[in-house]
């Protein structure tokens, strides 16, 4: 074992000396290789963390939301609708939700007005989201006026601001009492925007949705699973877009690495010939080149991945943020919680390190099994 280790150390010594003879070329390759791993890792780390964040936060969303459709559009839930749903077996609890959109010409942004089921503010008061607090320069006990769609001006007192930590889901929220909401939007009494359902047995959610669609043909049940799938597909799509943009860079690197790894220069061929002539075995030459491939690809992978981790979770992915996050007038400020997917890292490792290490070996093996004299003569 000791002898084997000593031999590997000598081989690495020789490999490093050989790499140093073509310093600029090899350093250039290492830099491009590291940059590529950095870009790929940044995209996968960021989108995975965002996907996980959405999945964890929205796991607490209602099991089923029931919308009513009229002419293919979302319409208000009329009185009597909830009683019909209540007769469906398996429905444990239901609540009419009241929410809507309001365009604020001052900030040129849309807000989501909502009536909370629990802890609604008193009449004349509102609770606002942190992004709204920032954009309108609001603070607790400040007054703010909104012109309703009927043209009437409504003034509210800001009773509280939602916590900064919840900004990802509450950036644009304006919470108010039912009375204020109905007066502001001229909402007819007894009507709701949609209905949130709780199902007694989680295994039965899909069956309840099927029964709902049969009993109320104009209802559109939206399951929590579908909400989670929607977000998973949004972030998959976005990751795909960035990877598609990066594919040109990946291809260019592939060509560079293949050319570097698979085509031996005359100098390298002569070096192999000399090594064989002075007594190196074919196995030793292959081991030496294997170390070369492994040192370059492993260094690039480790440096690229660590840099990507620091970039995404300590510098908020500032390089790719505009593409990966998207934008809006009231964009929430949030810091992603790191979630590293082991399978994703293993895949990245496999597709960046293994092909290069393997590509190095084939031409070397070809050159190493040829007669030293003919290799040296070229």
């Amino acid at each position: 074992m000791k002898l084997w280790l000593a031999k590997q150390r000598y081989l690495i010594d020789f490999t490093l000396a050989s790499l140093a003879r073509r310093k600029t070329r090899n350093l250039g390759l290492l830099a491009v290789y590291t940059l590529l791993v950095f870009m790929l890792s940044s995209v996968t780390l960021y989108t995975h963390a965002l996907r996980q964040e959405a999945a964890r936060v929205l796991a607490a969303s209602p099991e089923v939301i029931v919308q009513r459709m009229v002419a293919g559009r979302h319409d208000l839930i009329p009185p009597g609708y909830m009683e019909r749903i209540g007769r469906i077996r398996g429905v444990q609890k239901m609540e009419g939700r009241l929410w809507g959109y309001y365009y604020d010409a001052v900030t040129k942004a849309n807000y989501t007005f909502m009536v909370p089921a629990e802890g609604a503010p008193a009449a004349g008061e509102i609770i606002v989201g942190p992004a709204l607090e920032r954009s309108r320069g609001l603070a607790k006990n400040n007054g703010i006026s909104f012109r309703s769609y009927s043209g009437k001006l409504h003034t509210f007192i800001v009773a509280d601001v939602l916590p900064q930590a919840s900004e990802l889901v509450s950036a644009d929220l304006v919470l108010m009492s039912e009375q204020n909401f109905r007066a502001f939007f001229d909402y007819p009494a007894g009507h709701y925007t949609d209905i949130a359902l709780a199902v007694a047995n989680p295994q039965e959610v899909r069956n309840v949705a099927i029964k709902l669609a049969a009993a109320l043909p104009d209802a559109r049940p939206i399951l929590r699973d579908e909400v989670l799938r929607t977000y998973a597909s949004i972030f998959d799509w976005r990751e795909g877009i960035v990877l598609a943009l990066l594919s040109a860079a990946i291809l260019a690197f592939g060509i560079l690495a293949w050319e570097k790894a698979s085509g031996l220069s005359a100098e390298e061929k002569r070096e192999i010939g000399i090594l064989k002539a002075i007594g190196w075995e074919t196995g030793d030459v292959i081991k030496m080149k294997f170390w070369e491939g492994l040192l370059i690809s492993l260094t690039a992978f480790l440096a690229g991945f660590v840099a990507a981790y620091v970039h995404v979770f300590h510098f908020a992915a500032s390089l790719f943020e505009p593409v990966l996050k998207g934008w809006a007038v009231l964009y929430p400020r949030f810091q992603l919680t790191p979630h590293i997917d082991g399978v994703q890292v293993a895949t990245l490792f496999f597709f960046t390190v293994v092909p290069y290490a393997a590509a190095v070996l084939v031409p070397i093996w070809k050159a190493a099994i040829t007669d030293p004299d003919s290799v040296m003569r070229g």
Partner: protein
Amino acid sequence: MRPADRALLLLAAGGCAFALCFADAARLRAAAGPDEAERTRLVGQLRLTDLALFTEARYTRHPSQADLHSAFQDHPLALEHFPTGSLIAPPASLARVGAGDTATSEEGGAK
């Protein structure tokens, strides 16, 4: 020190930094626990269904609750006019239109 030892030390340091990323991720996850609990509590309390990422239109603010044909909300041939359209995938049903299949309201909210 021999070059081989230096190179192996460098790789070992890289390996340690790689392992540290996982340890740091666990530390940040533990630190973010209360904030995450706050977000989850608010989602449960307010019965929220979507992230507040894009606020420009109803189908970008609440993509999971939007009409199935919301991309054509103004008229059937209207083009998507928000930048979010390039960040949110079109409904899967649109890819099957050529096969004679069209979106129906029974397909649920996943878009």
